């Protein structure tokens, strides 16, 4: 008789994403395995397999002797329904064993709006959601990723968090688990011990108390837990583990290509950007190492595209050396080299010309704000001239397609700034009229605005989010100032960004809200077709929690912040001074120009910050 899973697969969309068996999947002999880790990505296979962090840590864990790390992704709704109807618990792709049978369950969390997926996946696995309901060493649930920089909304569910980069800390916690399992420790003993590993945050070892107005009164560490947990980083990226034998999915994924991370950190300091502050300091990889890894990865995987990724690839010092070596290799082997997030400087323009010989990609800018004044406030040092010069070049070269991304609701924003977007777009149209060599196909300008979400560990972490109605008013104001048929304007609906803002700066009280939202059917919130705002609103009102407390209220500078326990290396004084600069409209030069003293260098012992 055909197995249940194989009977379900013909009835769901894209069944290949549920079966594993891809090239380079790692299978181990169970008799040699002491610790089994179910590594969960709280979104679909196509999204999760595109995540470089997950690929690195999959490799890191499976390099360990006696450890087998297997992958788990969130099922799409049709599969979830079939699983529930047939009482089929969540399984891993490698062994197809039930997640419930695993020693450790790890989550990598990169987006606030996947919190419901985490709970839903635990539920589908048949694992109790709350940490306190899971006794014993089996099913220790831990998590990492950028959302761990404010772990509080998930504090009730996750046993411990790994803060920062995972290459070194992950083997340390698994080694400890290995010992704990061999010696048959109690869960509490393990948590007490794991909390001593630098970068580990055990939420149950802290009590949070609140004032009558709802703000945090204090955070008290228990049992000698550290007052703050400092994020971990890898200092020498050249020597760090990098998997050149990566799983090659048998079905199409979102980023279906090889991916090479050229450096970590960012020199720019855009004041709204969480990654820009929390991923500091800047650490580079050498062009030699990168070239070797690129060739190894491509040879092994057979991909026909490779992307050079980082927060701002133009700022990679050896970009010229690297691309000069990679371009001939890629054209000889019919491989597309894609270099996203280039800035509009001269070298990048030349590089764009060279890349064009392989394949023509679009032109995308993220000025984020419509006026120079507001761009100075947010420290986005992209000038109108730079945008228009690059557009002029591109139009002369035959491009007819521009995408422009903005945010609405940035601190100090006025209607003048909103209309500045329309003016900037108008200037792009005029540039095209003056410069385009091929006008037959017409010009397409895609303008997109998103709803500003203040994030922890940024200079804007105290800011209020404008109310959704006000955001929509600004969208409509902008919309009626686009007159050209060339412009296609899309604005994000505010609902999701409002919830994102709640979760981003949320505290422990939100655990119940997330749980209630899941009970009301919230899952796959990042997918339009599944997002149910009502489920969330009902959950908030059931729990007696007002989302506005976390959004339009704004946080006081003297307030205890839920994420105060987490130290990303950048000091609070620095964030405050950046906030003051924002209100004065003064720009902070990029870190390469001059060090602004953010404090993150204290994390470095072996190397200096390479800004």
């Amino acid at each position, binding site marked *: *008789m*055909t197995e249940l899973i194989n009977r379900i697969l013909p009835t769901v969309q894209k069944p290949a994403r549920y079966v594993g068996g891809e090239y380079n999947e790692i299978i181990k002999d169970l008799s040699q395995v002491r610790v089994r880790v179910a590594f969960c990505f709280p979104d679909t296979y196509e999204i999760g397999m595109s995540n470089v962090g997950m690929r690195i840590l999959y490799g890191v864990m499976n390099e360990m002797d006696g450890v087998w790390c297997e992958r788990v992704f969130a099922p799409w709704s049709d599969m979830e329904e079939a699983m529930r109807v047939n009482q089929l618990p969540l399984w891993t792709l490698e062994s197809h064993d039930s997640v419930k049978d695993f020693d450790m369950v790890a989550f990598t969390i990169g987006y606030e709006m996947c919190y419901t997926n985490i709970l839903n996946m635990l539920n589908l696995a048949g694992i109790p959601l709350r940490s306190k309901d899971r006794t014993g060493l089996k099913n220790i649930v831990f998590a990492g990723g950028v959302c761990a920089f404010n772990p509080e909304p998930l504090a009730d569910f996750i046993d411990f968090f790994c803060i920062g980069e995972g290459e070194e800390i992950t083997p340390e916690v698994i080694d400890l688990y290995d010992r704990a399992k061999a010696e048959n420790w109690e869960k509490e003993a393990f948590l007490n011990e794991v909390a001593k590993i630098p970068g580990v945050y055990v939420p149950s070892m802290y009590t949070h108390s609140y004032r009558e107005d709802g703000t945090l009164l204090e955070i008290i560490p228990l049992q000698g837990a550290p007052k703050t947990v400092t994020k971990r980083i890898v200092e020498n990226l050249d020597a760090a583990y990098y998997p050149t034998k990566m799983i090659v999915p*048998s079905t199409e994924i979102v980023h279906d290509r090889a991916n090479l991370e050229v450096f970590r950190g960012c020199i720019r300091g855009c004041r709204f950007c969480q990654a820009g502050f929390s991923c500091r300091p800047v650490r580079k990889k050498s062009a030699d190492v990168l070239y070797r890894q690129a060739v190894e990865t491509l040879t092994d995987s057979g991909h*026909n595209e490779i992307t050079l990724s980082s927060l701002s690839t133009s700022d990679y010092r050896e970009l010229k050396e690297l691309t000069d070596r990679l371009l001939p290799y890629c054209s000889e082997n*019919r491989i597309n080299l894609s270099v996203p997030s280039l800035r509009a400087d001269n070298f990048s323009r030349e590089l764009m010309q060279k890349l064009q010989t392989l394949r023509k990609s679009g032109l995308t800018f993220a000025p984020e704000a419509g006026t120079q004044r507001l761009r100075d406030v947010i420290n986005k040092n992209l000038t109108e001239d730079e945008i228009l010069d690059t557009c002029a070049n591109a139009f002369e070269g035959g491009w007819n397609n521009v995408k422009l991304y903005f945010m609405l609701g940035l601190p100090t924003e006025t209607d003048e700034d909103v209309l500045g977007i329309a003016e900037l777009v108008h200037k792009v149209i005029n540039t095209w009229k003056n410069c385009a060599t091929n006008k037959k196909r017409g010009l397409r300008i895609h303008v997109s605005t998103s709803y500003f979400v203040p994030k922890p560990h940024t200079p804007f972490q105290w800011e209020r989010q404008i109310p959704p109605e006000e955001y929509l008013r600004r969208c409509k104001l902008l919309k009626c100032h686009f007159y050209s048929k060339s412009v296609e304007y899309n604005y994000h609906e505010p609902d999701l960004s409002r919830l994102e803002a709640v979760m981003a700066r949320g505290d422990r009280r939100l655990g119940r809200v997330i749980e209630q939202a899941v009970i009301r059917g919230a899952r796959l919130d990042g997918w339009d077709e599944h997002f149910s705002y009502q489920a969330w609103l009902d959950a908030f009102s059931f729990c007696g929690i007002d989302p506005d407390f976390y959004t339009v209220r704004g946080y006081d500078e003297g307030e205890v912040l839920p994420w105060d326990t987490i130290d990303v290396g950048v000091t609070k004084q620095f964030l405050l001074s950046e906030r003051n600069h924002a209100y004065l409209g003064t720009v902070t030069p990029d870190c390469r120009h001059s060090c602004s003293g953010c404090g993150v260098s204290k994390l470095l012992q072996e190397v200096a910050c390479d800004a």
Partner: protein
Amino acid sequence: MRRLLFKKTGRAVWISHLDLMRLFQRAFKRAGLPLKHTQGFNPRPSVSIALPLSVGVASECELLDFELVDASLTCNDIMQRLNLVLVDGVKVISAYDNGMKIGELATLRCIITMEYDKKVPDRCVEKICALFDGESVIVPKKTKSGIQDQNIIPMIHAMSITAVNDYEIKIDTVISCQNPSLNPMQIPLAIEQYLPEFKPSFSHCCRIEIFDKNNNVFR
């Protein structure tokens, strides 16, 4: 144009036709066998798979046509190098320097297994045989322009039905696979429609062999 005969079984049955093309393109690259590319604005590697296989259907007889930049490699060499880098369930059985024209492909033999979790009902084999001995069995077929009724009997060239055990029956059949083509999974669908009492709990299918119009094995 060179040709591969490969099988697609096990977990690989869930890989779609388009994904399988991509999978082979990457496998050729991994094997150090650069493919020739088509000319034109968007050069594509020259691989094509003869009869697209539905997701979920297994096969012992898939054909893939390709052209290598280096024409000097032997078929045996190509096969061995590919098999080292393919995924579980996809395996090259043999490679050929050239082959028959795809247009001459006419029929395919497949085995449909029908599972009855509560035992095969009485007279099931007999009734199903009788159904397909008739002149017409009309089954709705999804086409680009909507759903059309289709008589599948003229497309069934041979059929033998046997009970494998108390829980399974096996339909071994030869059907048209080109101009017109019959999706073999229409057969259990027809049974479900005409003989609802013999509806299986689950059915699956495997392609066994392909033939030209003179019933010669097609390669």
